[in-house]
């Protein structure tokens, strides 16, 4: 177990190096000059521009810039934004908002996804199974921004029960609709996954054996059908937590939430390499850790899986 954990953690090193290099290169390759962008339409004084370039190491070759960034990042110094703010502060403001949003979306999709999936899987072919299937198919095929605008229009404008946008420092109700929109696609996948698992587990021989023991249908459902069906669902959910953190960009933009997605979008526009790479690295770390937790959880849930 310890050995396995150590190996998995060591495996993260090349992953971190690879992603940061890739993202750094992508930002570097972006068209446009970040210094010019800072001045907007105003004419740029060459001397000032050169000074800024020197300050942010923009005059150095790509690989040197990257290595300098890495060196500083190791001492947890992620540098400053072009506006002079420390990158770490920007991230510190944005992350709590996104974490809150992602967790709410997570709870939403887990709860409704599993419940509807079970109902559907137990009563395959009934009318409500068909309805659930069609709705989940719709949610999967319609892009998030459409669901987002639709939700905004219906709940916010037409019925006026939920705030239209969240703004800075959003509370629970401000984030409710964005979280539902954010979690809707994953919820649809979870419904389908749970449904498939439940309906195939019902027909398993050990379920019949359990019933032959004289167990009531409720305990057979919980102890044998659900316990086994939820193993793949739980692992999907674990990975999805990482996806939700990084994938909030569209919902955050629609609902004007100043979270990680919003910040990333802004910094890409401005060519803020330090900020973009820092955010992506952090998201990636979250993703990798979620993955590791899922693998550990998987082994805990299914005794047949052993660390190797």
């Amino acid at each position, binding site marked *: 177990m310890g050995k396995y954990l150590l190996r998995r953690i060591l495996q993260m090193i090349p992953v971190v190096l690879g992603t940061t290099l890739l993202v750094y290169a992508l930002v570097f390759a972006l068209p446009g000059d970040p210094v010019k962008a800072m001045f907007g339409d105003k004419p740029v004084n060459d001397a000032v521009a050169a000074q800024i370039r020197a300050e942010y190491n923009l005059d150095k070759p790509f690989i040197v810039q990257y290595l300098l960034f890495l060196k500083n990042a190791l001492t947890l110094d992620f540098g400053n934004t072009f506006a002079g703010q420390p990158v770490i502060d920007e991230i510190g403001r944005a992350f709590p908002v996104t974490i809150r949003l992602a967790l709410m979306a997570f709870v939403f999709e887990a709860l409704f996804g599993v419940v509807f999936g079970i109902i559907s899987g137990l009563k395959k072919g009934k009318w409500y199974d068909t309805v659930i299937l069609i709705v989940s198919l719709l949610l999967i095929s319609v892009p998030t921004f459409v669901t987002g605008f639709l939700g905004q229009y219906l709940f916010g404008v037409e019925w006026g029960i939920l705030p239209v946008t969240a703004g800075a420092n959003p509370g629970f109700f401000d984030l409710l609709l964005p979280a539902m929109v954010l979690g809707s696609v994953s919820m649809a996948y979870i419904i389908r996954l749970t449904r498939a698992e439940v309906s195939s587990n019902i*027909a*398993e*021989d*050990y379920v*019949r*054996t*359990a*019933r*032959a*023991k*004289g*167990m*009531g*249908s409720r*305990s057979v459902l919980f*102890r*044998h059908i659900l*316990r*086994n069906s939820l*193993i793949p669902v739980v692992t999907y959910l674990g990975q999805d937590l990482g996806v939700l953190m990084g994938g909030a960009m569209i919902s955050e933009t629609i609902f004007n939430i100043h979270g990680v997605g919003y910040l990333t979008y802004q910094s890409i526009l401005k060519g803020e390499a330090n900020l973009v790479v820092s955010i992506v690295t952090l998201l990636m770390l979250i993703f990798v850790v979620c993955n590791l937790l899922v693998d550990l959880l998987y082994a805990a*849930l*299914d*005794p*047949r899986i052993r660390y190797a």
Partner: protein
Amino acid sequence: MSKVMNTANNLEALQREQGPLLEVKNLQVDFTTDSNRVVHAVRDASFSVYPGQWVAIVGESGSGKSTSAMAVLGLLAGTGHVSGGSIKLDGQELTELKPKDFDKLRGSKMGLVPQDPMSNLNPVWRIGTQVKEALVANGMDISHEKRSKLATALAGGEVAVKSADDELFISSAERPALMEAAKSGLQKAGVDGERFEAAMQHFEQEWDAGSQTRWRVADDLIQAGMGDDEAWAIAKQYVTGSNMEDRIAGLLSEAGLPDAATRARQFPHEFSGGMRQRALIAIGLACRPDLLIADEPTSALDVTVQKRILDHLHNLTDSLGTAVLFITHDLGLAAERAQHIVVMYKGQVVESGPSLEVLQHPQHPYTKRLVAAAPSLASQRIISAQKQGLDAESLKEHHTKDDAALERSEHIITVDHLTKEFKLPRRKEMFKAVDDVSFSLKRGTTLAIVGESGSGKSTVANMVLKLLEPSAGTVTYEGKNIAGFKGKELLDFRRHVQPVFQNPYGSLDPMYSIYRSIEEPLRIHGIGDTKSRRKRVRELLDMVNMPESVMGRYPNELSGGQRQRIAIARAMALNPDVIVCDEAVSALDVLVQDQVLRLLNDLQAEQGLSYLFITHDLAVVRQIADEVVVMQHGKLVEHATTDEVFEHPKMKYTQDLLDAIPGGKLQLGLD
């Protein structure tokens, strides 16, 4: 002898007096297909089971035997439902029960030992937990034994004297003290020497915590030579009831699982098939049902394991007074185990009666076919015929070559000091799956490799097929070492040595049509054009007695036997010299098995094929092989002609395998 007869008479009288435990009358079970068509799976079936009796339902797959049993349990799969007739358990009508009331009957009144031990235990729960569920679901008293009505009636006045507390189990906590007390008690009673040792050994073996009761302990002590009062005093002081863990371990050890307390904490995947089946027997009997439904409980297991488990189940149900509805496709096995046989065919009961009666004077043509096809009975018939000096050859599917002919024939495949080692996880030493095995297969003959699972026989087959590389030793084909085969030579070898595997469901690609499956080897080896290949496929289908019309169909539309014939046709496509059959008929029903064996035999006669036949079933060997190699724990333990092995087995292990053939001791009416 007279006492045994008395008990037997007594039992029958009691059974008659109590009336049938299970009475199925004119049962109809229907399934509805997707297209709303009604399929009658069981039609007008009637049979009954008396208390304490073993009744066997025999038939091929699809005959409705399992469906009838599941209807009794109220566990019909999918769209299945009882559409007519009645099922009475202990006088209570089951067909009109609500699901909730059915739950109450299952487990406590009727138990199930299912067919496939691999899929019937939930992989995520510990074995002990799964036994516990049965006890908890039925609110079983885990500190007392529950005696069936029949057992109580049989014991008569003897039991009436005993109070409920005499049925208390030994607990694991008090067992050491009990052993001590028994030891000193015996010494005080003046028991010594060999008798003392024997008694203590008996106690050590029999007094399992959670399964042995107070009165049995007292009984054992009295038998060992202790006074009545002393024995009861010890039993009363040291046998005061078990807890849940004890009871679980007790049930498991009762079912024949060694070291049960530790085993209970393991997961199903850590168990072998036989061990899982024992766990399932423990679950089936956990709540002491009056009726146990055993649905092909050992069909998935090796013959030797099958015999051990059925012997055990028999003793257990006899001592508990449990009636057993035993479902099997092997008539020999049914006749050996059950007092009464019900033969089902296409959803109907075509014949039923006392076992020997059915076996010796089958009335219905289908039963006659079953009797003729049962491999267990066939091999016995050969032996009896030989004893009476009759022409046994005509009874065999396969006319074995005599010794002289075997001497003359040349060796097509020679296996020389073959060894295969595997690395086991977390262990230093290597595991020898095959240990120094040598034999040779002669052209145009059949060599059978026999052994239990884990004996290394399939590993040998894989090395002969060059699917595995040996750790040491050589396999020679036509005088050439196959280890050196590469490129064209290897392709040529593959062409001439073809496999037929055990599972006809897994060895055909479900996405390939039958035509494509058979044509594939021809295409890979670049033989002929589309037109000539089509012709060849037609020939091959004809060879295995399948109609041309199956060419466009897919494996899932065919039965197991049909699929195995397709697999044989595919193996034959390239005109091989050698076919390696790895348990090729083990998964098939007896009648289908019979057909496939006949087919293999005809093909050998026509084309001079050589077979390497891997199986655990000696009954099949008798019908098809010229020579037999017996393997145990990776080693070759016996190698001789088939007749010699059957008549004069040299090794104890071979004798065990022979004894395990079901129906071996039955008296057949040979007419």
